[in-house]
């Protein structure tokens, strides 16, 4: 394998691994902040114990999210130095702003929160978790603005053999990036909601700490319900933005080969990339694709054959990931609705409690699939329409990349297993009993 393919695999592995931990950080930091706020307002010790219990799971998850994030910042330079040189003027600034304006705040105040239970007043302590929650989310915004530039470059001018910044306002108000921001954040919040729901259900079924987990369940169910609806509705708007700005990605997402007006959506499709067609197309809904993409059934949707082969992304992977994400995306509000309906009868162990722990992995799968659509669907471009991925790689020998790829993969597999083991351990253990908590305070 050449350095390009190895670097792509390494980047995909490192990013997808990193993104196992990021959404829970985003969602759970907010949930813990809400719980601690309820404690400060109501003075109910249960909410303090909730903040501590869910906070502990947050920290175990956070540890791996932070350290794997460093890899990503380094990788642009180590593996994609041509890219870094070409767009560093814009892309690099967004990453640097993220570090100075958000990441510092997050990393500093998470320690204040952990070590400050006895040192700070409840209000100040609560403020520290809000700073962490806000900083994590602001951090995500800057990173997604950077990714948004790769998806839909704006505000630049080609000068001195590279893309230079022309309009900073355009870069930070990039409409494509903001769609990604809303989509990613709502996905992260619904994931946080289902995480809390699933673990609470597990304990409620076993009649552990009923009052504690009923309250947790309520916080989780509202997060899951609200943001699974937001993710679906906003996801549709995001899709129309893709249709407008990245026609090749849209065509691959739908595996649409021949462009046409009144484009239907087939419920069942098997793409055949080799022969540039679909080997199976089944159950069409007339005009639906045109309607969804351009809000009009007669609108023309471009097909893959409208573009030269060298400009098309991998179809099968993009298509399958998109279908998977959409399927799960439709399932989430339904599940959240049933959980919400059961919120007042948790004592009688409704059946939904048995399913919810198994739902925990699903938002992770949906989010990773979504990123596959975004990143694989953008190929063959590293910056859509501006720079090809094959031209972006560092002038390094592939044996170096091979070495680092194997090293990082083995290390991540080990650490990921440890982290999940610890999450299981502490999630099952439940909150500290009341007596010790009051003693310690």
């Amino acid at each position, binding site marked *: 394998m050449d350095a390009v393919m190895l670097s792509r695999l390494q980047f995909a592995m490192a990013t997808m691994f990193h993104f196992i931990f990021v959404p829970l950080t985003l969602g759970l930091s907010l949930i813990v902040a809400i719980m601690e706020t309820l404690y400060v307002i109501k003075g109910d010790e249960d909410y303090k114990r909730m903040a501590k219990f869910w906070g502990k799971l947050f*920290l*175990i998850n956070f*540890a791996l999210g*932070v*350290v794997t994030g460093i*890899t990503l*910042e*380094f990788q*642009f*330079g*180590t593996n994609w*130095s*041509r890219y*870094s*040189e070409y*767009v*560093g*003027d*814009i892309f*690099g*600034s967004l*990453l*640097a*702003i*993220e*570090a*100075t304006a958000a*990441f*510092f*705040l997050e*990393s*500093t105040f*998470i*320690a*204040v929160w*952990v*070590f*400050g*239970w006895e*040192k700070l007043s409840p209000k100040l302590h609560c403020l520290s978790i809000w700073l962490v929650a806000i900083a994590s989310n602001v951090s995500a915004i800057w990173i997604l603005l950077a990714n948004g530039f790769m998806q839909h470059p704006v505000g630049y001018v080609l000068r*001195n053999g590279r893309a*230079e*910044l*022309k309009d900073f306002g355009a870069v930070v108000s990039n409409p494509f990036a903001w769609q990604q921001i809303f989509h990613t954040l709502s996905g992260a919040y619904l994931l946080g909601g289902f995480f809390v729901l699933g673990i609470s259900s597990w304990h409620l079924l076993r009649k552990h700490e009923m009052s504690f987990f009923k309250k947790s369940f309520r916080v989780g169910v509202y997060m899951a319900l609200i943001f699974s609806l937001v993710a679906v509705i906003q996801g549709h708007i995001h899709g129309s933005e893709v249709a407008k700005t990245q026609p090749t990605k849209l065509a691959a997402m739908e595996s649409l080969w021949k462009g046409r007006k009144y484009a239907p959506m087939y419920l069942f499709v098997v793409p055949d990339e080799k022969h540039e067609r679909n080997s199976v197309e089944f159950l069409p809904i007339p005009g639906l694709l045109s309607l969804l993409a351009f809000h009009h059934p007669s609108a023309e949707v471009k097909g893959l054959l409208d573009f030269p082969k060298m400009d098309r992304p991998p179809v099968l992977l993009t298509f399958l990931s998109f279908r998977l994400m959409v399927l799960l995306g439709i399932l989430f509000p339904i599940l959240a609705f049933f959980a919400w309906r059961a919120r007042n009868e948790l004592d009688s162990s409704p059946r939904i409690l048995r399913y919810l722990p198994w739902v925990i992995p699903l938002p992770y799968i949906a989010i990773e699939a979504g990123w596959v659509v975004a990143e694989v669907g953008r190929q063959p471009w590293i910056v859509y329409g501006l720079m090809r991925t094959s031209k972006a790689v560092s*002038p*390094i*020998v592939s044996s*170096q*990349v091979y070495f*680092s790829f194997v*090293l*990082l993969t083995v*290390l991540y597999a080990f650490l990921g297993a*440890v*982290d999940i083991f*610890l999450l299981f*351990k*502490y999630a099952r253990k439940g909150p*500290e009993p009341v007596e010790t908590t009051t003693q*310690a305070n």
Partner: protein
Amino acid sequence: MNTIWFLLWAILWIIYFILDGFDLGLGTLLPFLGKNEEERRLIYNAMGPFWDGNEVWLITAGGVTFAAFPKTYAVMFSGLYTALMLLLVALIVRGVSFEFRNKVESGLWRWIWDVCLFVGSALPPLLLGVAFANIFKGLPIDGKGVFHGGLLTLLNPYGLLGGVLFVFLFLEHGALWLSIRTIGELRLRAGVMAARIWQVKVIVLVLFLGATAVATDLFATYFHYPFLLPILAIPIYGIFMSRNAMAEQKWKKAWFGSAITIAGTALFGFMGLYPRMLPSSLNPKYSITIYNGSSSPLTLKIMLIVALIFVPIVILYQAWVYKHFAHALTPQDLEYEEAY
């Protein structure tokens, strides 16, 4: 503007060395100072609320290199590929060991993470020292910014000496930090350790400065700009400051002396490079400088505004955290349920 950014770039790296320096040094000292479980936990908690925030200075130094000097970032990071990957692995296993270590009641489990902390703390100063010494000496980069060599190219005598220097600078820094943050016997041993390391550190530093005169042309910059020569006095001042303070058992002052030594040594190196950032050992014409490696004037301007607003804010709240959380630890602190 480019010169301002070069100074800012150097300052960010120096802040990183000073702050992460003590926790990297202390992590390396863990097997030598932590004789029992209680002492080992004291050592972890001495770095407790700080290590994460300190490490962000590395991310920022890297990010600012990317933003203000994209070409420098591209050539530096791709050229030093394997060294940086090892640095990453070290920082990763080190970072998780804080969070993981105290989560399972098992001697073997804790031993694994103690080893990770030690290796993950010892390797970064070595790699950073090797990397920067090689930059001072000049890297084999051609006119297209391609690095001709590998990890072994970096492991030359001068590079290794730079690595050893960083290790000892940070070890001293870590031992003094532990003296500030503990009491009783552990503080006593940390103090003795700091005094011993001080001797080695001075020898290595003198050797390094001597080797720098032979292996690099950093001194040429100082003869070209004689007003920079006083920079050389900074590390020497720091060395004597920490020695005197150690004799009086004023650990905070000694730590600041050590911080000044680190800052002065790094500043000496960085300013000796000026206006180059990555000198080429193949041909001086191929060197990456603050001019041919920089971003556009607009980006430099916007980033300067961002830096001037946020860096002071960061320093303020981090100083607040140090003020409130850097007290001397007692065994009671280990009973705090969230302690490492």
